[in-house]
Structure formats: C-alpha cells, structure tokens
C-alpha cells in the first residue's frame, strides 16, 4: 500500500541540479516526504509540524548539502531525531524496588489493560517472584471473571475484594498483599475516557492509596490523532511513569509511539505483540523508527 520512504527520498535526491549538489528545493521536497510518511503513520499533526521544522533546519546545514550520499545523510537526521524524542535508544525498565511494588495499569476502553496485567504477572512469576493481580474494574461486564481466568491460567492469585467498589478493593488489596507476602502487585483498572471526570477521580484516589511505583497507561498501537489528547490528560491527572503499547503484532505504523512520548516526555516501557500470555516485549526505540517511517 505504501511506497517506502527510502525510495521516495532517493527519488527526490536523484533530481539534483546536475553538479551533484543539493539545493534547498531538494531538502524541502524531502522534508515533505517525511511529513507525509509521519502523518500516514498517525503521528500527531502538530508533532509532525514541529518535527519537520527541526529536521529541515538541520538538513540545511553543511553536512547534508555537501554530502555525496545526501539521502543517507538525510535519513540519518530523521532517524536520530525520532530516537531522540523517544529518549535515546535505551530500554526503560519497570521499577519494582519497593516491597511490595505496586504497578497500576490505566487507559482507554479496550486498549489491553487486563490482558497486559496478566502478561506482566506471568513475567514476574517466571522470574521467581510472588505477584498478585488486583481486579479493580467493577464496571465492565465480566471484567473480574476475565482477570480471574487469566490468573488461573498462569497460577497467579487474583484479589477482587467486594467486587463492587474499585477504591475499596484497592485498599483491601494492600493489606492482603502484605499479609500474603506478595512482592509485586499489579492493579487492573476499568477502561475510561480521559474526559470522564468522575472516573478519572477514581484513578487519582487509587493512586493516593497505593502510591504505586509505576503508573502505566496502556495504549493501543492502532490509535490515531486523538492519542495525544488522552495521553496528555492521563499524564496531567496521574503523572504517569510510562506507557505500554499493545497490538503491535498487527500492521499499524504505530506513530502514537512518537506522539505520546513527544507530548508527555514519558517513556514507552513495554510493548504487547499478541494475545498470548508471553506476547510482551521490552521496548527499544530503534526498532520502531523503521516501522513508523515505513522502511
């Protein structure tokens, strides 16, 4: 469906002024191709605008204009700038230094919180830890059943308290975890819209009770331009520690990965790559640049 950016760029740079020298027009055309590729990948409009301005400025510097392989040089600038938005090519680990360590999962409806909670618990169980899952979604039909079934599959207990009040369940889970010597506690919350004030308040209350080391927003890789609105609002209300991007096993470009990190300055820590329990991976920015640019 998409022609690769690489191809388009070499096309742009082929029409040089004859002497093998780049002109400003070449750079402008190349920048336009990058802009289109990023928009096609669902990077937010305003993020794209600011980003390409920066790339243009840098590309107009000597290095590209004088280079014998300007397309390579140009792509390098784009790549490096994208990786910089993602905080450099390092993996940001989940913090679990406290005992018990509380990890709270939040996000919009259907993004993959419950599945990811179980995946995370499974990961720690395999490492010899003693995790507890907490079912604090009292709204969606059978949400608690879902987590209980997943917990059974992986042999991790699920605390669901009175099954009625998410804040109360959270409070009680804290005592339960301490009594039963759980060293990692993962809280699954109900999906909610960032504009739902009552529901956002509930998350703030849960946060205040647990003082979690990690407050992660679980985000669907297929989301488009609206991602920045929800991520910004969740971050403003909860001061997130990072993101988990799910459903990257599909063919979406995942431009959301750029947008939300650019807007919130919080890292992506893990990615979901399937529906199965082991389909959770660490996030390395470099891997996603090619995907986002369609190369």
């Amino acid at each position: 469906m998409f022609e690769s950016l690489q191809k388009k760029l070499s096309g742009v740079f082929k029409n040089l002024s004859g002497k093998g020298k780049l002109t400003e027009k070449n750079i402008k055309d190349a920048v336009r191709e990058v802009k289109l590729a990023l928009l096609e990948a669902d990077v937010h409009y305003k993020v794209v605008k600011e980003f390409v301005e920066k790339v243009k400025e840098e590309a107009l510097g000597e290095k590209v204009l004088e280079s014998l392989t300007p397309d390579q040089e140009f792509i390098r600038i784009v790549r490096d700038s994208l990786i910089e938005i993602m905080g450099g090519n390092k993996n940001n680990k989940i913090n679990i230094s406290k005992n018990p360590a509380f990890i709270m999962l939040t996000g919009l409806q259907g993004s993959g919180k419950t599945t990811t909670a179980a995946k995370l618990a499974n990961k720690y169980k395999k490492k010899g830890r003693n995790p507890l899952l907490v079912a604090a979604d009292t709204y969606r039909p059978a949400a608690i059943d879902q987590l209980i079934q997943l917990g059974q599959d992986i042999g991790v207990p699920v605390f669901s308290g009175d099954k009625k009040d998410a804040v109360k369940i959270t409070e009680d889970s804290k005592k339960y975890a301490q009594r039963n010597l759980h060293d990692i506690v993962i809280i699954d919350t109900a999906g909610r819209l960032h504009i739902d004030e009552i529901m956002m308040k509930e998350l703030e209350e849960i946060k205040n009770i647990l003082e979690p080391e990690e407050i992660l927003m679980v985000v669907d890789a297929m989301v488009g331009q609206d991602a920045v609105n929800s991520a910004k609002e969740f971050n403003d209300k909860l001061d997130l520690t990072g993101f988990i991007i799910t459903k990257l096993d599909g063919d979406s470009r995942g431009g959301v990965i750029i947008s939300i990190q650019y807007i919130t300055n919080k890292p992506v820590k893990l990615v979901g790559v399937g529906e199965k329990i082991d389909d959770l991976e660490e996030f390395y920015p470099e891997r996603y640049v090619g995907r986002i640019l369609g190369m």
Partner: protein
Amino acid sequence: FSGRTLDEDTLEELEEILIMSDMGVDVVEKILEELKDKYHNKITDQEDPLLILRDIMVSHLSTSPLILDTSNAPLVVLLVGVNGSGKTTTAAKLAKIYMNYGKDVVLAAADTFRAAAIEQLKEWGNRLNATVIAHQKGSDPAAVVFDAISHAKAKSKDVIIIDTAGRLHTKSNLMDELKKIKRVVQREIEGAPQEILLVLDGTTGQNGIIQAKAFKEAIDITGVAITKLDGTAKGGIAFAINHELNIPIKLVGLGEKEDDLQIFDPVKYCNALLGIEE
C-alpha cells in the same frame, strides 16, 4: 469561519481539522480540492467555507440503513473487528435496538477464545433479558453459530446477533475462521448473513482503512459500526473508509450502556467532526 474567505490560512486551518480527525492525507487533499473548486466557481449558495465543506462531506457519504426487516426471519447480523474495538458491547446494544422494535433476539457467543468473553456476553444477555447461546471456552465458534441458528429456527426468533473474537486482519488463520462462520450461516439460512458489520474503534488511525479492506476482502462487509465517539476522537477514518472503499457507516457507539448506540446520521457526524455546533 462564517464571513471568512477561502484564503491560505483558512485552508490550512481546515486541513488541520480534517487531518486531526484521522481522515488521512489523501482523502483530505481530495476533499479540499473539491472545496476550492466549489468555492471559487461558485457552485454553491453557501458563503461559509466550513459549511460548504460539511455539505461536500455529507454528499460523499453513501448511506444504507440498518436492516430491520425480519419477514424472511431469522435475520443474521455478524459482528467482526480487531481486538477491543467494541464488538461484544455493540452486540448487546444492537440487541437492544432490535428489541425496541419488538423483535425477538438471540445472541451467539462465538468468541470462544478470549478469557471471559462468554461470561461478558452472558452478563449482557441477563441485563437485556435476551437468550445467549454459548459453548465451552475453546470450542469451535462455527458450532456455536450452528446451534444459535437451530435455536432461532426452533423458537421462531427474529434476529441472531453473532459476537466474534477480536482478530487482527493480518492473521490469516483467524480470518479463515470467520469465513467458516459465514459459510455455516449461508448454508443454514438462505440470504444470510444479511448484515456483516465491521466494528471499528473511533480512535483508530490510518490502519482503519487497511482493516476495512482486509475484512471486506475476506468476508464482505455490509457496514461499519464506529464506537467510542463519546470521547474526543472524531472518527474521520470512517469517512475515509466510506470514501475509499464504499462501505457505508451504519451505527455509532456513544458510550458503554445498552442505549448508547445510534443509527448513523451523516449531518450529525460531519458537524461533530468539523466542530460545528448544531
């Protein structure tokens, strides 16, 4: 916008609105070309560029009503889509719509894969007082569908709504499973499934087009149900799907409750997308 002319600034603002609605650059360019043409050649009585744009968008939306006629009962509605888009909830809300028209509805729990998907639909069945046909987790979804059809025939039900497991359009084995479900329905009831609805998350970006294309190619889609438009997402991808693939939008999801599903209204949708107050 009213009183404004279609200068570079206005065009850029409109482009921004449209791209931020997830309509996609290609479609946005085409629509804006048409706007310029209409505006400059005065092929419209409107003065306000925003309203001209709205009218152009509305004129592009090919609509097709949700099938309500059950005289050749049972009417079969198959819901498909990627993971978490809102299929199960939409199945329940849709049951409510048909029940409001006095139809007898049976729900088929053909998501036998995801944890507690069956319980989720059963819970909805309880709330709505509608029958849910279900098997064990892990069983063959096509067998569930077969049973739901037998039940509907035996009890003279009007409508069968089939909830399927979420699947990414890139997974061919899962797409084959859908084809099998469709074949069973076709074999058991002539002319069915009358509706095959793609349930699309309203926050979806450009991948939505690829999804729609893949589901269309695999099992043919009769319409789109776009969910979660009660948030701040505009759902412009549904316009792009309609425009590029000629698949009508039929339903709009506006919340998590049983009554939060509306029949698609092109003018309302375009107004909301463009931020025009009604």
